């Protein structure tokens, strides 16, 4: 068809009444499953026509039997294809954030309330189809890959759930949109080195290497302290769980600053910052992040790291 893709898309959206997002679980009811012959199905129809003409012409009764058996088989196959999809229960699964350049996966879990379903496929618009069998009593997770080239928020969009089982003559499909989205962090710039020292007590070389700093004091253990800072000897002496504090860390307020990140463009600078965030988190360093218009107070831990990475992912350069 010669319609522009956008026009076809809007017609398709109108026909298939996309309501976004839907509340899980979504059950593929009878009214939201569509079915049409596949390309193979049309070819099969042509074959049947030829067989019928041959049967008539050669007055082959068994030819008629063959033709009608195949035609009826196709009719029954339509029902089977439809029922292979009907009443499936879909739930959105985990969709983890990734770094740009990696492959992200939107996961949708599928359950069947009745018989086993074979060759259930899902695909995003313009995406590759992923196939799986769904066995009763088990939850099958289908991960839709999406290559995350650029940082930002990637939304999954409408997912087409389809099947052609058992004989491929019909294409039964349904659309589901959970409004799934995931974050793509900037690609960490491994060549970025270490953040420049900006606090007075900070070494010139940058991020401290364990053992380099002066041991300062012991303090009570707080949840989230890296294991390597725990005073194991003190623990062995039954003095309780104590954390060693180093002077550099105790006093330093490591700020990862937009202004310090050198790069050709915004993305390059974000990549540098991303690398620094990961590095700082890796060393258990408490750090803060300063971006134009955003400032995240120093802290540490997984949640903090993710908050910083999210800020980097969603950063929009001021004009």
């Amino acid at each position, binding site marked *: 068809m010669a319609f522009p893709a956008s026009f076809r898309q809007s017609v398709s959206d109108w026909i298939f009444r996309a309501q976004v997002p839907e509340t899980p679980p979504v059950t593929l009811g009878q009214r939201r499953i569509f079915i049409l012959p596949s390309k193979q199905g049309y070819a099969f129809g042509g*074959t049947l026509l030829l067989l019928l003409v041959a049967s008539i012409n050669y007055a082959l009764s068994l030819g*008629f*039997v*063959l033709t009608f058996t195949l035609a*009826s088989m196709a009719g*029954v196959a339509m029902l089977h294809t439809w029922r292979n999809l009907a009443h499936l229960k879909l739930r959105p699964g985990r969709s983890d954030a990734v770094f740009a350049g990696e492959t992200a996966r939107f996961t949708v879990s599928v359950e069947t309330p009745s*018989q086993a379903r074979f060759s259930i496929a899902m695909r995003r618009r313009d995406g590759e189809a992923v196939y799986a069998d769904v066995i009763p009593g088990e939850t099958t997770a289908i991960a839709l890959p999406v290559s995350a080239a650029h940082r930002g928020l990637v939304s999954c969009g409408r997912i087409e759930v389809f099947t052609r089982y*058992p*004989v491929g003559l019909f294409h039964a499909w349904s659309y589901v949109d959970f409004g799934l989205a995931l974050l793509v962090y900037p690609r960490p710039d491994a060549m970025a080195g270490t953040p420049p020292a900006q606090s007075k007590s900070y070494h010139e070389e940058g991020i401290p290497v364990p053992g380099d700093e002066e041991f300062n004091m012991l303090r009570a253990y707080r949840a989230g302290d890296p294991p390597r800072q725990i005073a194991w000897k003190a623990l062995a002496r039954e003095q309780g769980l104590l954390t060693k504090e180093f002077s550099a860390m105790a006093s330093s307020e490591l700020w990862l600053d937009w202004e310090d990140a050198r790069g050709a463009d915004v993305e390059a600078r974000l990549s540098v910052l991303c690398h620094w965030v990961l590095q700082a988190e890796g060393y258990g360093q408490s750090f803060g992040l300063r971006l134009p218009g955003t400032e995240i107070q120093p802290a540490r831990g997984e949640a903090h790291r993710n908050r910083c990475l999210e800020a980097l992912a969603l950063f929009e350069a001021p004009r």
Partner: protein
Amino acid sequence: MILRLPFAKARSPRATEVGSPQLDVRNVLWLLAAMVFVVGPHLLRLPDWVGIFFMAVVAWRAWISWYALRAPPRLLMWAITLAAVVGVFVAFGRIVGREGGVTLLILMASLKLLEMRNQRDVILSIYLGFFLVMTNFLFSQSIPLGLYMLACVWIFVATLVGFNRVGRATLGERMRPAAALLVQALPLMAAFFILFPRTTGPLWALPTDSRSGTTGLSESMSPGNIANLIKSDATAFRVHFKDGLPPYRTLYWRGPVLVDFDGATWNMRRHVSAGRTDHPRSERPVRYAVTLEPTGKNWIFGLDIPGSVPAGTTLLSDMQMRYRRPVTERMRYDMTSYVDYRFGLEANRAQLQAALQFDPERNPRTVALGRQWAAENPDPRQVLAKASILYNSGTFAYTLDPPLLERRHPFDDFLFNSKQGFCEHYAGSFTLLMRAAGVPARVVTGYMGGEVNPLNDELIVRQADAHAWSEIWIRDLGWVRIDPTASVSPLRVENGVNAALGPIGLLPSLIDADRTGLIGGIRYAWHALNSQWDEWVVGYNLDRQRQFFTSLGYPSVDWRTLGFWLMTAIIAIGAAVTIGLLVHDRPPRREASLVAWDRFCAKLAAAGLARAPHEGPIDYLLRVRASLPTAASAAEEITRRYVEARYGAGASRQELRDLARLVREFRAA
């Protein structure tokens, strides 16, 4: 320079979608097996080289798939294709006839298998397979072949299922869905078969060899050719008598009448005037229906002599029946005959003249004997008596394997030397003797007798019942049937060919099989089944369709009525199958408490307080209580009962009903 084999090992796993249906080795092997199954019956009837070629190509393809080799290069494929076409042309002289066309289709299908690269090629091959199923029916439409082809279709559908599966499927996972599809398709297929409007003839002219079944009598007879026919157990036609079977000795089924004679071979006359059926009648006619197998010839068979002929048939003056076109498909006709008859009293001079022609140069001793009889007594009855003495002298023997006769004077050789022969020897020599004696005589070929199937009282006439006899013309009597074979072997005429040849006969075992006892019973049952099959399945044509609906009380159905019924049947059967599937797929009944709970949640959701997927009943209740203080107590009661029923001690029917009632009465607003 290093020459590399064009398809040396090159493991190049094609880039396929992860987990998607693919050109898996097992799937390809399934397809190859299906192809071998469907082509199998053809390979038995086609020249050996076709089978060798086909199996070699299939094996090659299997090898390529198994070791994941590259497909043969395009140039080689072209060369093989060309060779195949040339082979067909050389073997069959053309590429359009039945054998030639089928051979070409088989070879092309095998080459398609060889170059199969993607899913589309696979599908094409499978559809080609369905065509190959169809081509088998050009050769035979018997029950065994039908069942075999059904199995082939099953395998093909199973192959299709395999190609539509993710990864690998077991034998059962292929065969079971395929069987389910076919079994559920059967009612619809039956409706289509019965109701689909049939047409009267082919859409376009067919090549004459398009159908099987051209064994049978021919336009000429020379010593030996009926004897070959008689070794065939194939059915010539079946007869259903409307008023019971006439006496066995009257069952002479008249076929080609041979008048022209060259000394060895008897031939049909090219032009015979039309005949009449208004010959003197002495009794009630025998009424019967004949189901004739295709012969590829114009003539049809009837008992001597026809009273009324079927539509589209001309009766000739020698009582042959000619159909308007060659019988290329099974044909059923109703007719009547008079077995106690008298005809041809006023035969015209030309006809009688033709029945006296012979070449006196050939078979001189036979001619001399006939002339001698006539000289002794010109009365045809006396001549006949002399002939009777000759054939009953006890020196003649009835055998299917007579010695080869001398070419120029075969009947001299037979009458005076070998004295061993079959019906055509007796009929031929007798007719010649009569002509030499001045009695108009001709040879009639056809069938004698038949076998009655006790299960359905049908008479089966086989090629083995082929027979030849004589007719002589006597003033005041007209044409009289004389069967010289009856003199030699009365059993042949009384009881059929098997009895005549006895248990130590020279017939192949297929004829002298046991016709009594258990084996005989099974044989008869099988024949009865075949007869029904031929009549109602293979022979289901326009006439049969009309007949069927007439018997149901709808005498004149046209295609519109049929179409309407067909649509109705499709809808009804489709609905039945759909409902069957839905009932089968119905998920297990959910607990009543869960149903009530879902309804409760739906009511709250409508009030803008939807339960989050992760929210348990208690947490939800806390939220509901905070947001909807007015409904708090009712919600609390419902939640308590639900939790008790589902996670606690369970609930009685009454308690579940109460819960349902509470939910029903619950108002969120």
